[in-house]
């Protein structure tokens, strides 16, 4: 048995020796080298974006961009103002002054009958402003009566009653519509606040004044006298005035409204085809008023731009625009007094925006009151005019309009780009599908740090790239984009650019959007969009 195994194993070993005897001279396993390098190429999508005009403007933080029924964008902002109109100043120095001597029937009657009644008038005929007033509801008005006499019996126990059919007294102060004053001597004030005065054509307010004495025996001498003076405060304030108030002075002012359309558009120039400035006014003024716009002007820092009116009513000097306001027919009613839109038909308002302004001023003048002296109107002590001043700029831009923006993305750190992977070639294919009515120029600049807070552009032509994207196809009748155009471009870097790429700390992107020369003007719709697709081809080794 052992011999059998011996033979078997010897034969087996012989076979193995035969098999294992040949050496492959191509190899030497003592010098084996396991260094490896993978050379790989890869393609793929990197990113894509589709930006509509609406998106773009939203990002620019312009909150007042809207679109009309045809999706055409427009910028609209308005500001409301209230202009309080000062009430009419009515002043009366002296209403009346009466002196009774011993021979007067007044003193006689007092001494005989212990009372006397006489008719006096509050006379406003000397006051020009009262000329056409029908009635006044007084606000804060006091009459001062000053009574003096050398008759001792008239200094005490004398009472006064005043009544007038032309005056309706304040019921809270005078419930029976009669003024009664006891111990009527010296200075006495009568509060006429809330009283209603009705003027006749002669501007007299007649009233009946009755004086009573308690003393039955009044002794008068030749030198006896009784003086009664009636004064009103310097200015009569009123709650309401009815009549024809023709002597109002002018009100002048400036309304200034800010708008943010150009806030992020440095170095931009916009030539809108037809911007509209709209002015609306509401008022509670109850009398004819002339409203005049002296000028519209816009400001941008130190720049100022006026717009001139066409067909101005002032052929002699600076053109202005004047209209009559509607007025309120009923006290308390707020009525639309004026409304108008100022566009290219009324003047060169497009030029106002040529300086990319940030504010719009409206200079105005009111002339309140009827010039013809007829009619019945009213005024109150709280008259106002509410303005709504707005501007509407359709995104309908003339050729030559250019919008410029720039953005810098900081805190980029490409230094950690794998050193294990050597890039032989990196190509970023860019595909732009432009359905905007603009040519777009985009300038990419890679920045590196020069200090802690300072950056400089990396001097590498392959990294810093300018793209030109052609505007969409524009219909010359509608001025709108009807189809998109496709622009292809790429950024290609190779191994020699990698060190520059690793030093990138920021990316500066400058955009310049302009109306193409091929169109006289373009309308921008909210749905107009720019699609960008970025794909890559990477070849390298690791």
């Amino acid at each position, binding site marked *: 048995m052992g011999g059998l195994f011996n033979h078997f194993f010897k034969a087996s070993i012989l*076979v193995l020796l035969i098999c294992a005897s*040949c050496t*492959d001279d191509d190899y030497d*396993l003592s010098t*084996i080298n396991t260094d490896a*390098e993978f050379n790989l*190429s890869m393609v793929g999508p990197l990113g*894509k974006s589709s930006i509509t005009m609406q998106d773009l403007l*939203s990002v620019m933080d312009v909150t007042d961009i809207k679109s009309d029924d045809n999706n055409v964008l427009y910028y609209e902002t308005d500001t409301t103002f209230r202009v309080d109109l000062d009430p009419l100043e009515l002043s009366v120095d002296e209403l009346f002054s009466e002196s009774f001597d011993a021979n007067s029937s007044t003193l006689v009657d007092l001494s005989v009958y212990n009372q006397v009644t006489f008719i006096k008038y509050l006379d406003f005929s000397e006051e020009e402003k009262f000329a056409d007033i029908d009635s006044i509801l007084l606000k804060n008005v006091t009459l001062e009566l000053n009574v003096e006499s050398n008759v001792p019996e008239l200094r005490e126990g004398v009472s006064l009653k005043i009544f007038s059919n032309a005056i309706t007294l304040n019921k809270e102060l005078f419930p029976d519509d009669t003024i009664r004053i006891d111990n009527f001597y010296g200075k006495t004030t009568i509060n006429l606040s809330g009283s209603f005065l009705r003027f006749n054509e002669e501007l007299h307010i007649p009233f009946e004044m009755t004086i009573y004495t308690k003393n039955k025996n009044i002794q008068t001498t030749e030198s006896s006298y009784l003086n009664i003076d009636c004064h009103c405060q310097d200015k009569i304030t009123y709650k309401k005035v009815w009549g024809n108030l023709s002597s109002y002075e002018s009100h002048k002012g400036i309304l200034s409204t800010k708008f943010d359309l150009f806030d992020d558009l440095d170095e931009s120039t916009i030539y809108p085809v037809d911007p509209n400035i709209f002015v609306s006014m509401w008022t509670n003024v109850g009398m004819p008023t002339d409203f005049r716009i002296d000028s519209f002007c816009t400001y941008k820092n130190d720049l100022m731009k006026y717009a001139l009116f066409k067909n101005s009513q002032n052929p002699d000097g600076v053109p202005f625009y004047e209209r009559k306001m509607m007025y309120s027919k009923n006290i308390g009613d707020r009525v639309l007094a004026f409304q108008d839109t100022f566009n290219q038909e009324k003047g060169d308002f497009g030029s106002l925006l040529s300086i990319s302004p940030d504010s719009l001023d409206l200079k105005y003048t009111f002339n309140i009151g009827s010039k013809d002296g007829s009619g019945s109107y009213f005024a109150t002590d709280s008259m106002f005019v509410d303005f709504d001043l707005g501007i509407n700029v359709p995104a309908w831009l003339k050729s030559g309009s250019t919008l410029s923006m720039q953005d810098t993305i900081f805190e980029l750190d490409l230094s950690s780009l794998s050193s294990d992977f050597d890039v032989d070639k990196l190509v970023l294919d860019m595909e732009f599908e432009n359905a905007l009515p603009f040519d777009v120029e985009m300038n990419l600049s890679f920045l590196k740090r020069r200090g802690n807070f300072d950056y400089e552009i990396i001097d590498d032509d392959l990294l810093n790239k300018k793209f030109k994207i052609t505007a969409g196809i524009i219909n010359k009748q509608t001025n709108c984009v009807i189809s998109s155009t496709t622009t292809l471009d790429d950024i290609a870097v190779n191994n020699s650019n990698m060190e520059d790429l690793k030093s990138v700390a920021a990316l500066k992107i400058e955009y310049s959007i302009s109306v193409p020369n091929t169109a006289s003007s373009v309308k921008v719709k909210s749905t107009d969009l720019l699609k960008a697709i970025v794909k890559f*081809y990477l070849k390298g080794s690791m």
Partner: protein
Amino acid sequence: MKRKLYILCLFVLPFLYTVKGQEINTLYFMSENPMRHQLNPAFMPEHKIYAGLFPLLSSCSFYVGNNSLTFSDIFKNAVVDGKRETVLFLHPDLNNGVSDFLSAIKGDLKVRMSSNINLLRFGMKVKDMYLTLGVNNTIDVSFSAPKTVLSFALNGVKEEDINGTTEVDFSNVSASALVYSDIDLGIAYSVNKNFNIGAKLKLLSGHSCISSDFDGLTLKISKDAWNFSGNASINSSIPGFYWESDEEGHVSGADIDDVSVSDFFSSSNLGFAADLGATYDFLENLQVSVSVTDLGFIRWKDNLAQLEKGEDFFFDGVVYDINKDDTLDVLDEYAEQLEDMMSVKENPKSFKTRLSAKLYAGAEYTFWQDRIGVGILSKTTFCSTSTMSDLTLSTNFSLCRPVAFSLSYSFMQGSFSNLGLGINVNVGPINMYLLADEIPLVYAKGDGLSIPSRTRGFNIAFGMNLIFKDLKKDMAEHVDSYNE
């Protein structure tokens, strides 16, 4: 350096050797060997009875290799820094290293390691029949990847395709590992003097398995999009093994519990297989034979765990939304898509693994009183995703009765360098044999190592059996011979 090389060889060698099946082709025409009925159940051993000598040594075979690559395809001779060195095909100083590597791959790269051990083997002739009984254990690990997948992994997108679409089809990528045992009962029947038929039935019992199933799984890469679509699942039946998942069922890891040996003997993972064969002697010295083996499957029902691909992955670029502040977060979405692609199936279904069936067709002509035989064998292996064919030319010498040699040369997957040798010794009641296919003839040497440099795989089989002759028949033959 030595340690580095060992580690390297540990990873590389499994990919160097090829096996299309566990069986060694050289065995097919070795008529003195009682085990050759494993390749064709119609073959009747010459001995009245045979039995495995030891439970584990009756027949053992081990196979490792691949269908395309040799050591010389992976390592090259190059001059580095003025010195000649053996370098990887990926070495930066090599020109065309990767392209040469890829051109060496024929179709799909198939890598396989397997072993088959006969635990028990017995055969006995009963009249015109020969009955066999055996118990075997098989380990079979395989991996297959199309050349296009490997090309993409090594090159990425080809230069000429950068503006087109590169489509990488993973449908034919497969990986599986099976451990199973079988009990086979075979019968060979002599229909007449010239015609034998045989059949063998196998009851299979699976111990553990993991296999992938990719259906239409395709990666399309272009500048416009990356799209990974199709169906994929990974089925397993491994005692104690389970996939870990998050709350949404997406796979987050894998773990294995403590298990005992008995856990691997599940009565639920059963399968069946059959071998069928026939031989016909056209002339006195010319025999043709045909057989189909391993026609069967195992259905795995126990210890199941399953991963299933969910949504397709599609990436057509990060969408930059000007209205959102932090657009880079979008990348997280795609990373999540990738992470969540595979889900753990809550109630995994049983699954079936098919054995790799083989079709043998051979012809042998013997002369000099059967002392020398020449044969030709065609073998076709039906794998799950492909079919492979070998052609083997064989010569057998049995100059003296106890010892027989076999020399074979195979044409395997376009490679001619496949020498097979075998020796079979039958002395008294002892049978011993040692067989090998694809014997390496050329070795890379150095540093005390010898690594076959030109072969893709190595198959070896050996065994010891007890054999008992039919003395009456033997005596009758001797008498006839004497009379002649």
